[in-house]
């Protein structure tokens, strides 16, 4: 029996199917991300779990208890909203104490738990501040403390980091992950940021048009995406149109490449994905060659655009301290055979 179970969850807004028959089993203590572009139904799913939307069909069960029709104020889940949704007329401490107060917890214990929660998010010095007088990161941490102080069975995070600047976002990702592991609270994160999902989650649900396209660990999702959408959405990749040429080969723009495709019939149209960091560049030798277009420096690595017979590619090479390949240089391309992923063509994708 799983801890939190979504069974055939569906939500319809008029003619629009926001969430389409979504089933998920979430283990206790797991950090699960719902990842997808805007309008894919991830936030609607979260709000159904929170009780802010009533599902059109399907059930939500927590520890075997049916939550589907339970009012949001009776579910006891902790939620961090995208806008943080702090109470502007209350101080940080009052914000955090609100949930405890609603549970009728005595003042002395309340104060103690608020103090610990503030301590946990390193905001002890800001207890008496109003949200208006705090920075984005501080407000975010107050919102987190407010959700965690009630010791919820499940913590729901709705794009909690999207309003922070890039550097702060990375810090908070790490901080949030460490805190989650320390407390061991089951967490569901909604995000459209694939790097956020990859870096924080135990498992990721990639959603598209209300459906779960793939549910996997971050590594599996990255290395073995189930289709071209997932491969394009999670991480950077070179996506090419190909055709099966033989038992262990395929062609892309008439270039023959060897690949494992699981015995597809000759002539089958496929999509081919090749991660930029799997491409190894070397001095011209045998095999496929390409011309260096632009080199973009990212500190830890170089990003090259390549003009290859396969089309325009991007490749990533670690920064070894040496100067990059100059523009216009002919280089040889190679990659491990397993790096070339063969994916089905989806009819309705452009």
């Amino acid at each position, binding site marked *: 029996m799983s801890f939190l179970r979504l069974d055939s969850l569906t939500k319809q807004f008029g003619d629009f199917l926001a969430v389409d028959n979504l089933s998920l089993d979430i283990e206790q203590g797991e950090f699960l991300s719902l990842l997808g572009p805007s309008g894919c139904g991830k936030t609607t799913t979260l709000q159904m779990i929170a009780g802010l939307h009533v599902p059109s069909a399907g059930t939500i069960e927590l520890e075997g208890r049916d939550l589907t029709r339970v009012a949001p104020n009776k579910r006891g889940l902790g939620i961090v909203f995208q*806008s943080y*949704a702090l109470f502007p007329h209350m101080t940080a401490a009052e914000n955090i104490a609100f949930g405890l107060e*609603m549970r009728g917890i005595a003042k002395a214990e309340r104060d103690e738990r608020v103090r610990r929660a503030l301590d946990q998010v390193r905001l002890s010095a800001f207890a008496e501040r109003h949200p208006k007088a705090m920075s984005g990161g501080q407000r975010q941490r107050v919102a987190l403390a407010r959700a965690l102080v009630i010791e919820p069975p499940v913590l729901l995070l709705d794009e909690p980091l999207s309003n922070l600047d890039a550097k702060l976002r990375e810090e908070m990702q790490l901080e949030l992950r460490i805190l989650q592991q320390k407390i061991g609270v089951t967490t569901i994160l909604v995000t459209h940021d694939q790097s956020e999902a990859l870096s924080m989650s135990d498992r990721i649900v990639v959603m598209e048009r209300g459906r779960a396209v793939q549910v996997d660990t971050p590594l599996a999702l990255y290395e073995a995406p189930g289709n071209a959408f997932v491969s394009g959405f999670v991480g950077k990749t070179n996506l090419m149109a190909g055709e099966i040429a033989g038992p262990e080969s395929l062609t892309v723009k008439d270039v023959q490449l060897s690949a494992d495709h699981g015995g597809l019939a000759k002539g089958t149209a496929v999509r081919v994905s090749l991660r930029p960091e799997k491409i190894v560049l070397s001095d011209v030798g045998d095999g496929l060659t390409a011309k260096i277009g632009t080199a973009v420096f990212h500190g830890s690595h170089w990003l090259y655009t390549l003009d290859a017979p396969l089309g325009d590619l991007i490749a990533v090479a670690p920064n070894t301290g040496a100067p990059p390949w100059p523009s216009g240089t002919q280089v040889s391309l190679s990659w491990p055979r397993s790096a070339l992923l063969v994916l089905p063509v989806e009819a309705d994708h452009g």
Partner: protein
Amino acid sequence: MADPAPARSPWLLSAPGLILFAALLGAPLILTVMLSFYQFDYSTGGIQPAFSLVNYLDVLTDSYFHRIFGRTFGVALLVTVICILIGAPEAYILNRMRNPWKSIFLLIVIGPLLISVIVRTLGWALLFGSQGGISTALQWLGVVDEPVSLMFTMTGMTIALVHVLVPFMVLAVWASLQRLDPQVEDAALTLGASQATVLRRIVLPQVMPGILSGSLIVFSLTASAFATPSIIGGRRLKVVATTAYDEYLSTLNWPLGAAIAIVLLVATAIVIMSYNRLIERRYARVFA
């Protein structure tokens, strides 16, 4: 750019407004203040341009004026409280409505402001009379046995004033509701608060500045209201504005009328300013 230009331009730009303001509001006000210190000769009906405090002494010591001022501010307070009780929930409900109903009902709420206050009040006068709609309806329902008239009563005056002024309260609260993040209500709900608690602990404190500024508008407009009290209240229920009018036009004692008007102005200003100070002290920190 030369430095003096930017320093002078705000003055230049606001000069037309300032001049208009000074000419049309400042000058009459100064003349009224001067007039209030003149003396009126009852035997000749003449006005002596001499400095004297006799008018103010009259207004401040005569129990007749005390009653009128008491009635005026009593009605203003009552109307303000009723406007809060009606207007604040009304604005909240309106805000939760969906379009097109939201726009339609907002128009209905603001509607009264589109009609002349005299016309509206005369409409109420028709309803309030002993042969009017309200009296007939009450008799038909069996609430009363004989015709009742709300004309020249506090109840009638209050009802008519509330009707005129409630849109101001709705608009003020509406404006502060626009700033509310709907997720904040959701957050309170998911933390275990009931709907009633969300309203009391989360929504109400946040719209308080709107309610307070709405009550300032309603209070000052009621305290200085003239048309409605003069039609519904008549001579039997005089308020300050109608009293000043009578002194000017019936008794022709302009200096006394001016003194009454100035006392009303000062009293209202004191009430408003201390109230405003209170709001600022409480809310500036939170909503700045």
